[in-house]
């Protein structure tokens, strides 16, 4: 500062701990110079730059947010592109699968097949069916299916899925505890897809509780803490989710079930559907027993990919 002052150049200095800057200039006039022109000191102008600092910080934050949003958009675009690619591949795979399936059916109609041959043919047919299930699931991402977006009551949506699951729930001896919030805002959604998600989670819950004595499925709907969202919480009394798996459950093909029992794409697809609606889905283990899945959907769904979504899993 002294140097700058001496050189007669004004310089701005920002103090570290105060939002203040000093403009220091040297003065070579009689006011603060001694008779022998000995340099006595400098005076400067202190200016409160709090507002400027705040504006700069906000600008940086906005810049950061824009960057994050852009990154998420790029990620979304990538995922969408991957989705279209997998749907295209699935489509292509179905042709050779179709041919093999028909040939197997024809073979099975041959007379005088040995038992062993028949068994092998059945094994092949079953494996082909697995491929078919996977391609059906992957085909979900094709975007060829039109979205039918309308304002819906989440309680009705949940109710409808529970009706569909009622026979299974009854058969497996699952107790239900359903709490519908009386004042839910309507949500713009693709009803079929959201029902698919809820159905998937309830199916998983039922499977998780298999073989247990106490089976309780609870579903709660409520307006979430921030105003324009509706939350659905689906909980089971199963063994909970292995904490090493918690952050992988939404990955494609991740499953803890027997391969014959599913493709491991259910939660991956569900995640995609919720994300398409600009919502959030996550899971956590409950304090006493079982796991809960949380779905939050915004009242005004952006069913294109502009909305950012976090995937949260709490340990």
């Amino acid at each position, binding site marked *: 500062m002294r140097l700058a002052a001496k050189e007669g150049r004004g310089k701005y200095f920002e103090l570290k701990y105060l939002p203040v800057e000093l403009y220091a200039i040297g003065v070579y006039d009689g006011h603060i110079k001694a008779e022998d022109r000995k340099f006595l000191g400098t005076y400067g102008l202190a200016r409160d730059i709090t507002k400027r600092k705040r504006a700069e910080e906000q600008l940086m934050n906005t810049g950061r947010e824009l960057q994050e949003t852009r990154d998420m958009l790029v990620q979304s675009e990538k995922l969408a592109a991957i989705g279209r690619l997998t749907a295209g591949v699935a489509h292509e795979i179905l042709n050779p699968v179709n*041919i093999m399936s028909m040939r197997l059916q*024809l073979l099975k109609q041959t007379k005088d097949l040995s038992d062993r041959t028949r068994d092998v043919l059945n094994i092949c047919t079953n494996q082909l069916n697995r491929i078919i299930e996977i391609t059906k699931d992957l*085909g979900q991402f094709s975007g060829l299916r039109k979205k039918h977006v309308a304002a819906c009551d989440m309680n009705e949506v949940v109710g409808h899925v529970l009706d569909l699951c009622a026979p299974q729930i009854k058969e497996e001896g699952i107790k239900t505890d359903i709490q519908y919030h009386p004042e839910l805002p309507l949500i713009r959604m693709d009803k079929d897809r959201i029902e698919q998600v809820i159905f998937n989670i309830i199916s998983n819950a039922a499977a998780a509780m298999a073989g247990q004595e106490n089976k309780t499925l609870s579903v709660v709907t409520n307006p979430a803490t921030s105003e324009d969202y509706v939350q659905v919480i689906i909980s089971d009394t199963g063994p909970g989710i292995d904490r090493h798996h918690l952050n992988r459950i939404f990955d494609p093909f991740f499953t803890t079930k027997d391969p014959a029992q599913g493709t491991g794409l259910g939660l991956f697809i569900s995640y995609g559907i919720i994300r398409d609606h600009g919502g959030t889905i996550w899971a956590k283990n409950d304090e006493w027993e079982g796991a809960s899945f949380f779905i939050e959907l915004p009242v005004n769904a952006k069913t294109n990919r502009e909305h950012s979504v976090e995937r949260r899993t709490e340990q």
Partner: protein
Amino acid sequence: MNKILVVDDEIEACSALKEFLDLKGYDVDTALDGPTAISKIKEDQPHIVLLDMNMPVMNGTEVLKEIKKIDPNIGVIMVTVVTDHEQAKETLKLGAYDYITKPVDLDYLETVVMVKILDFLS
């Protein structure tokens, strides 16, 4: 009442369908694309056409429209991929009699064909 034309750009799919329907006593011909299918329809006048939805050059919907112009009474059964339900339903509006999804359940296909033939006869 038993002439069937199978149209699919996959030769092996045509072959398997022909073999099955031959076994069941039908008189089966095949075509690998739209233009060939249309010329065969004009010449042979099949009662039923099994038509693949996704073909290059002319896709199933276009062929369907042409067939209906030639003879609106031909029973056209669309063969579509399992995820394209919406598209398949559209073809019903265009005059397709029914649609079946790939992979084809041959027994079910036989039922659909039989029902259409009965329909013709009544």
